[in-house]
């Protein structure tokens, strides 16, 4: 079970309070985790990845095990602690704007 931590505004859109737990079919990667997240919470489609390009939105970052993996290939397998649920998959909004 993958634990996903959403930023505040996406929690509100998805109507969730805490972490989201996802069962991800096949290998756990950034792509498969976001795919599973969007299936469970279709209101998040287009808010993390662009509808057309499927690219990560510029002001969002993905962190696992204290590392920023935003620029890695979305198909790289996630670390074991994330796969086992020991560590969360973090979606972080850039600290920017006014």
């Amino acid at each position, binding site marked *: 079970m993958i634990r996903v931590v959403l*930023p*505040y*505004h*996406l929690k509100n*859109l998805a*109507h969730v309070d805490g972490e989201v737990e996802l069962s991800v079919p096949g290998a756990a990667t950034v792509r498969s985790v976001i795919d599973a997240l969007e299936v469970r919470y*279709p*209101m998040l*489609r*287009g*808010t*993390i990845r*662009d*509808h*057309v390009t499927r690219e990560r*939105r510029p*002001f*969002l970052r993905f962190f696992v095990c204290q590392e920023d993996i935003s620029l890695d290939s979305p198909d790289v397998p996630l670390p074991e602690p994330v796969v086992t649920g020991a560590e969360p998959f973090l979606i972080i*909004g*850039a600290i*920017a*704007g006014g």
Partner: protein
Amino acid sequence: MAGTGVRVLVGTRKGAFVLTSDGKREKWDVSGPHFGGWEIYHVKGSPADPNRIYASQTSGWFGQIIQRSDDGGKSWYQPGLKPGEPTKSPEGMQIGESNKFVYDTSPGSGKPLTTHQWYDGTQHPWEFKRVWHLEPSLTDPDTVYAGVEDAAIFRTTDGGKNWHELAGLRGHGSGPKWSPGAGGMGLHTILLDPKNPRRMYAAISSAGTFRTDDGGTTWKPINRGLRSQYIPDPNAEVGHCVHRIAMSRSKPDTLFMQKHWDVMRTDDAGESWREVSGNLPTDFGFVVDVHAHEPETIYVVPIKSDSEHYPPDGKLRVYRSRTGGNDWEALTNGLPQRDCYVNVLRDAMTVDTLDPCGIYFGTTGGQVYASSNAGDRWFPIVRDLPPVLSVEVQALA
């Protein structure tokens, strides 16, 4: 005669607010923020069903969201994702993608337009950024037009679940010449002709005004008579920075325009425009609107200049013309007449249909001012909202 009430819909930099009052428009209730922390570019109700309201919710982080209310703004949901209702068809297909605005580049549309002019003169891909304006149909609550940045017009016919571009606007021929201004290349105004359901108007920052007479399939520029400083060709077909246009409800061939500089009018559905700035202290500004019952009574809020973006002399003054332009009077009763340096943005003025006509506008300082007697006296409904982006009003029967 006063109706039973009004509902003012306010979009701000940090959420939406709903202001309600009875027909006297003296005592007000304020609800909100709805969608707190998000930029709400526009909130507008359906003329065919006042309980149906649409909102454009945007964010630099998370992109575009469309929200819909079926109960007059008490509760909201993303179209196609109503709690308790299936989000997929029996075949497993997503029912709606209400925030998916994809430009039509298909050869099948006949308008496979992909680029417009960029600041350096090169061609640049069209990139969807946000919905600036939502214009519900006059007759069908499920049909809504959306003006977006980069400039294009979209339509939904299923209550906001799915949106499709009316590609004839970008594709009519001048699209590659459009280029963004400092505020972005947004399609900010959509006007529906109440007497001719096939006719509508759209206005685009730094491009100009356009009209369709066939329900949105084909469009043409209607900018003859506009003069814009720094445009070498005074008769340029496009390139004029139109800030807002407004329609006389009883004379829909008469339109008024607040251009970047100049207040203009047309009496032939945009075929020709003439200047009516007259004795205004400055003819720069953003808003323009028309009295609901007097087609020659119009309102603007002069702003000092495009370099300063605040009212002249620190005085917030609405100017009213009862002669369709040229002769203007300052309306100041109840408005701050010293040390006021707010702006009034293009979608932030509206009029109700009660009698006497109510006028409403919001400021970048967070005030929403109202007049329940056509502008003779003003009062703040609320003073300390986030910067106001848009103001609309519904008269409730």
